[in-house]
């Protein structure tokens, strides 16, 4: 079971920028949708929804630090479908806005596998997903 869940987590790591829903990721693990979310949380300590959010926010932090792309472009680059959802999620996880984060942080000089893990934000996963989607399709809101 753990190996299949890891395969699903790896799939989220690879395809974070694509529209993903719980059903398609659960299919990678060959587990039913409801059982997948429970098992994932029991194994990795957070819901698949939250893991994907942190993966996307981690990539956006990288792009904010290392590139000149606009916040809006970065929002879509990492798989969010609305700037409002991106800004709210980023602030909730990182504790500051994307613009403030960019202003305070420059490039990181460390091997890829290290900074991917080291810079991935750690936040309490108390916020439950509101639907079976991963939140990409939330209605647009003010940033």
């Amino acid at each position, binding site marked *: 079971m753990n*190996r299949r869940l*890891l395969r699903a987590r790896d799939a989220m*790591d690879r395809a974070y920028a694509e529209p993903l829903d719980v059903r398609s990721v659960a299919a990678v693990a060959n587990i039913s949708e409801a059982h997948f979310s429970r098992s994932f949380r029991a194994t990795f300590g957070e819901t698949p929804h939250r893991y994907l959010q942190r993966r996307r926010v981690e990539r956006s932090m990288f792009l904010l630090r290392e590139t000149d792309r606009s916040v809006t472009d970065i929002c879509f680059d990492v798989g969010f479908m609305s700037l409002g959802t991106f800004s709210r999620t980023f602030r909730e996880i990182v504790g500051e806005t994307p613009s403030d984060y960019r202003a305070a942080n420059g490039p990181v000089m460390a091997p890829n596998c290290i900074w991917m893990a080291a810079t991935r934000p750690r936040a309490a996963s108390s916020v439950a997903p509101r639907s079976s989607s991963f939140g990409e399709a939330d209605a647009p809101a003010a940033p």
Partner: protein
Amino acid sequence: MINKLNVASIFVLDKDEALDFYVNKLGLEKGQDVKQGSYRWLTVRVPGNGTEINLEQPGSPLHDDATAAQLRELIAKGAMSSLVFSTDDVRGLYETLQERGVTDFTQEPIEHFYGTDMGLRDPFGNAIRILQQGKVAQKVTV
């Protein structure tokens, strides 16, 4: 002064399956394969490199049943061992591994300031990264 890393160990769930993967898929060579009673000391190594990778399986005689079960859980969720290898041609190797039937890639070759690397997992969940060092990284390490 220590002058060489002789053996490093990784945990696998099945030694025969590990040997097949690391030799026939990844391209390492078999090192030592010695039985002492029920214990099998099995190593692989990069061809031409003396450092042995010990393929260790949780269980008797090294672990009690409960410890072995915990280790198996951790291995399968990717929380135990990892290896980093070097190559002169990471993109060529990526194609070769695909031709050999490797599918469990975690990252296709991507360029970074220190070189180009890719990621995959062995059949049990252990993370493997393979790096082709870039010119900047070579200067830094020299």
